[in-house]
């Protein structure tokens, strides 16, 4: 079972929910936690993994072999991203524009292009609290594209049956979120009762609808802002699976890096029940 935690708006509590859910389920199932927010991953601050493996996240960029290159410029023509230029005496590559698609390499008439791995980040894994299988990716500073890192991160997970994989998504509603959500069974949308929370939730509704993934809502910081916001949630065609109240004690606990379960042990059962609700919703075939 693959469950993604997303939100649209940043800071609504995705990582709080994702890590708490993982911790709760770890006593019953083999549980994997994937931090797909590779620009600003925070899951490790809550689950304290002991990293035992690290590999670079790479994209394959072209390397032109000058002894074979005839400067015909076919690679320049083929590249949709202008990552190559024919500077008369040689072909120049712009790694930051390269998407690693391999098209230039495939289309070189002289087979003069080799692909080399260019690191754009790192992928780390290890065992965390309660035996959680922890994986995260970290995009290197100044690298523009998170999606290749997310793609490679997800490929490292090959769980067997009866395994739960929790994917902690990045904020926003663009391609890195889509990459995270691809192939999951369910999406938990974490929102807050503010105009920003609701506005960005609608962006996420668009995505889960287009991707045809069942979803449910978690309302975090319930009680903040004004009561008028609550009626807006009623208009959203998703079940509300959990409300976490706004509470300064919870807020400071999270700030200190504690999961909800460590702040209040009742959440162990709360998240276990939440998981059952998801399983039931999927059995009944509730599609958003």
């Amino acid at each position: 079972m693959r469950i993604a935690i997303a939100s649209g708006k940043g800071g609504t509590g995705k990582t709080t929910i994702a890590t708490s859910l993982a911790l709760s389920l770890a006593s019953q199932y083999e549980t994997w936690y994937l931090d797909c927010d590779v620009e600003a991953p925070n899951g490790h601050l809550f689950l304290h993994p002991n990293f035992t493996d690290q590999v670079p996240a790479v994209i394959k960029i072209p390397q032109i072999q000058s002894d074979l290159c005839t400067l015909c410029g076919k690679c320049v023509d083929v590249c949709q991203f202008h990552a190559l230029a024919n500077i008369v005496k040689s072909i120049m590559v712009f790694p930051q524009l390269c998407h690693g698609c391999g098209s230039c390499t495939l289309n070189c008439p002289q087979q003069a292009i080799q692909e080399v791995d260019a690191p754009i980040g790192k992928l780390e894994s290890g065992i965390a609290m309660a035996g959680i299988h922890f994986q995260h990716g970290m995009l290197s500073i100044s690298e523009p594209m998170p999606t290749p890192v997310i793609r490679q991160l997800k490929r490292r997970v090959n769980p067997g049956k009866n395994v739960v994989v929790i994917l902690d998504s990045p904020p926003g509603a663009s391609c890195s979120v889509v990459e995270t959500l691809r192939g999951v069974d369910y999406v938990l949308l974490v929102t807050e009762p503010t105009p920003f929370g609701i506005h960005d939730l609608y962006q996420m509704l668009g995505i889960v609808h287009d991707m045809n993934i069942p979803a449910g809502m978690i309302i975090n910081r319930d009680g903040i802002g004004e009561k008028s916001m609550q009626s807006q949630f009623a208009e959203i065609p998703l079940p509300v699976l959990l409300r976490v109240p706004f509470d300064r004690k919870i807020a400071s606990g999270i700030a200190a890096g504690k999961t909800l379960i460590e702040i209040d042990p009742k959440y162990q059962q709360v998240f276990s029940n939440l998981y059952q609700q998801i399983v039931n919703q999927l059995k009944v075939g509730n599609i958003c």
Partner: protein
Amino acid sequence: MLNRSFKVKQLVILSGKGGTGKTSLSAAFAFLTRKSQIPALVVDADVDAANLCLILTPEKTEGHEFWGGSIAQIDSQRCIACGDCGRVCRYDAVVPGFEDGGVFSIDPIACDGCAACVFACSQDAIQMVQQQEGYWFHSQTQIGELFHAELFPGRENSGKLVTLIKQQARLRAEDSQTPLLLVDGPPGIGCPVISACAGADASLVVTEPSQAGLHDLKRIMATLQHFRIPAMICINKADIYPEGAQQIRAYAEDQGVEVVGVIPFDESIPNAMVMGKPVNEAFPQSPAANAIKEIWNNTILRWG
């Protein structure tokens, strides 16, 4: 008409971590500059989750389609279902057909736009089709002109749309001799952030005193250092976790970066959001408004 000798100063508001209060602060800044009669233009660079318009109530004066990259499309009449396209696609975007005589199709969400399939297809059955990815707008608000955008959900946010609206804002600033550009940035450190930073004279990083906040603060600061943009820090919701606020101050001191202010946790901010107003307009005497005013004094006013 281009006015080339006029210099526009650009402040970009960033955070690393999402939800620290960038947009609330940007709106408050826009209000304060207007109140002090300092002309400013505002850009909402968080194009896939554009929230500034919820506080600034814009009236759109111009709207434009934003056309981004292209995606592949297979002509089912020409496809012979050989699978050559699927063999070269690195993005799992080629879907073998089970209906329609087995012809293949492209998953538009997965397609990266690389056109490898176009060149691999022996039947010339694949074309690249440009996509509309959203809209951008130039609007009037009660506190000045706003440039903002809406990226369609799930689309590529490579920074192109951010770059576009910033360019438009800069041109308008030069034309109208507006000396200040305020850019409300997106979370993270990737392409949209890099585009939001481009050409900025300074950055104000809004952080929160949590473990996650500090971790991501370091990432955005490293990014700003890489692009050589001078930065200042302010701490929002500072009293939620005073230990964390102290850690941030220690980090800032270590890095030689100024902490220009501290905002206490204050429900005036979400309440003002619900009212659709900047907090300094809705609750001018609130602790948050006073703190933001001081931050504004230490940033914008200092620029002169």
